[in-house]
């Protein structure tokens, strides 16, 4: 590391509370976000990279962040992430379908709110039920969502196949679209969808970071670490838990909407199944409980590993040698092993590994 905290005087509490206290950190992250993520990637990345790598990783990262808010920050185990995502996806679809003036960012936001309200309903038992018993509630949410969107065709606009394509010309991306320099076709392309996903993701990261560094986040963590003590110092445990469920499912809901609209381009209730819930949970564990950075590292790893293996296989043995079953089983074994090893060696996940590395670099080469 070429820069460190030593010798910097923090002169006000406002400075001390900044998300990135170091000037260099701020500069580098701005450069990375604006220069790399916005300009370089948008300009040069291929369609494949955008729609099969960047978009899904960000979308899953947001879902992971959502689960992390409930489980990592507030200590409420949830196994219904995909279910909550599907509420967001279906809400967005029906909003766009049934409200004339609806446009995408607003639909995503409202979808998040609707999912959040559903989250509160399934979070209510948390006021009475604790620990593992609570997974009943979130699993109920999961199975309930799988069932309701299947049993009531209204949600899918009576489509017989069970899958709705989301053709781009069906929705408006922005209000006053005609006044913007970029046309609909751009926003419906992978580039446009990438920019939408990126912007929403960054906004959600900043919002989460803001909550975590203020009273909201402290109350979540207080309830997680010791709810009796939190109660004794006057934190309303019930309100804190419900709020955490709302925010958590809001994130999941937005992720679900983005999953349908920005990533796969169709709406399919089969996709938001229990397995996906678990995948998101793996991302949380691998990345690190209670870490924003970890949420994305986890998403990148768990989503990226099978792709990496396939690519490596193609590169070493020639195209198409590794069949999908092999890749799938391989990733299960690898991810499973990594989860166990991480839990034993570094319960903080990749995020903690990253921090230790940073810490070591900071004193390098003067100390091991």
């Amino acid at each position, binding site marked *: 590391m070429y820069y460190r905290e030593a010798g910097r005087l923090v002169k006000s509490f406002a400075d001390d509370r900044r998300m990135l206290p170091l000037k260099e950190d701020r500069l580098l992250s701005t450069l990375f976000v604006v220069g790399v993520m916005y300009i370089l990637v948008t300009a040069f990345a291929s369609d494949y990279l955008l729609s099969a790598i960047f978009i899904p990783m960000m979308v899953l990262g947001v879902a992971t962040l959502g689960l992390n808010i409930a*489980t990592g920050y507030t*200590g409420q*185990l949830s196994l219904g992430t995909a279910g909550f995502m599907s509420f967001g996806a279906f809400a967005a679809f029906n909003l766009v379908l049934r409200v004339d003036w609806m446009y995408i960012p607003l639909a995503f936001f409202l979808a998040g709110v609707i999912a959040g309200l559903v989250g509160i309903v399934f979070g209510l*038992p948390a006021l*009475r*039920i*604790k*620990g*593992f*018993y609570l*997974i*009943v*509630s979130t*699993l*109920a949410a999961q*199975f*309930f969502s*799988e*069932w309701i969107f*299947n*049993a*009531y065709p209204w949600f899918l606009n009576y489509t017989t196949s069970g899958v709705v394509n989301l053709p781009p010309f069906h929705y408006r991306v922005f209000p006053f679209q005609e006044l913007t320099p970029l046309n609909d076709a751009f926003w419906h392309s992978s580039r446009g969808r990438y920019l939408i996903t990126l912007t929403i993701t960054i906004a959600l990261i900043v919002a989460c970071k803001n909550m975590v560094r203020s009273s909201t986040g402290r109350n979540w963590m207080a309830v997680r670490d010791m709810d*009796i*003590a939190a109660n*004794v110092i006057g934190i309303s445990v019930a309100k804190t838990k419900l709020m955490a469920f709302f925010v958590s499912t809001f994130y999941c809901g937005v992720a679900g909407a983005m999953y349908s609209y920005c990533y796969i381009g169709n709406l399919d209730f089969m996709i938001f199944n*229990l397995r996906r819930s*678990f995948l998101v*949970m*793996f991302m949380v*564990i691998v990345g690190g*409980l209670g870490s924003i950075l970890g949420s994305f590292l986890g998403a990148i790893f768990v989503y990226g590993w099978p792709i990496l293996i396939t690519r490596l296989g193609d590169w070493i043995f020639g195209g198409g040698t590794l069949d999908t*079953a*092999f890749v*799938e*089983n*391989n*990733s*299960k*074994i690898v*991810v*499973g*092993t*990594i*989860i*166990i090893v991480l*839990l*034993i060696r570094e*319960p903080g996940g990749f995020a903690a590994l990253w921090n230790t590395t940073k810490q070591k670099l900071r004193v390098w080469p003067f100390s091991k």
Partner: protein
Amino acid sequence: MWEWLPFFLEVLVGGLLSGVMYSLVAIGFVLIYKSSGVFNFAQGTMLLLAALTFVSMTERQVNFWVAFSITLVLMVALGIIVERTVMRPLANQSLLSLFMATVGLNYFLEGLAQGVWDSAVHGVDLGISNDPIFLIEKFPNLGLDIIISQFDIAAAVIAGSMILGLTLFFQYTRTGLSLRAVSDDHMAAMAVGIPLNRIWAIVWAVTGVICLIAGLLWGDRVSVSFTLTAAVLKGLPVILIGGLTSIPGAIVGGLIIGASEKLGEIYLAEYFGGQGIEHWWAYTTALIFLMIRPTGIFGEKEIERV
């Protein structure tokens, strides 16, 4: 005015019988949770692994009992290995970490099971007749015109005797008493010289055996394939209703879920768009019970000390 009764009874009995099979899965859960606080999510996959191992041998014309014994040994070994390599290094960690480790283990075993064997659907035939029994023919005096599945009865008897055996084992043997002591108080158990690791290894091994029996019964009923891992999802509401630490709870919970599932399917599904409610219905039932008793019917209510 009692015309509905025979049919109701038929549904109820069918539900209760399948409930016994849920109990069997649930008991494996309870044993591990009771003794070590580990919520073993890998139960379903262990079950699949057992069934797959067995089937892949019988499909190669290996004798039933030989296959059974080999699988039994392998499952016991698996249990012991899991205890050694996963659970022991994680002792003293938070319950959440332990749970997540079993989720990881679940994923690992899933990949392994399908990697070593395959993901095709296999049949397993335990040689139990599938013919229904017409109760009115067998016992005309009862006057009940009910049809009961012979397989369900046989499965329930096997599962039931397994449960009975385990209950007796833990009630009256030295190991059983040690296990109950360990589940009550780890520290005290160590203080009187009960070797925790040995008890845990035994519990995981016993769970392996339960998985084999349950895997075969479930396998015969719904065929051996990836969907078998869903057995764990059947077991979950059962133990949560019964209380995570209670063997009688697992039995009662199994009966409740079994009955409620069948009754719900027959009598309630029509109000909910026709079909498919069984997945969430079991969980809703569990949720209702838990709202009344947050730690299950037989679960222990903890007094929180501060």
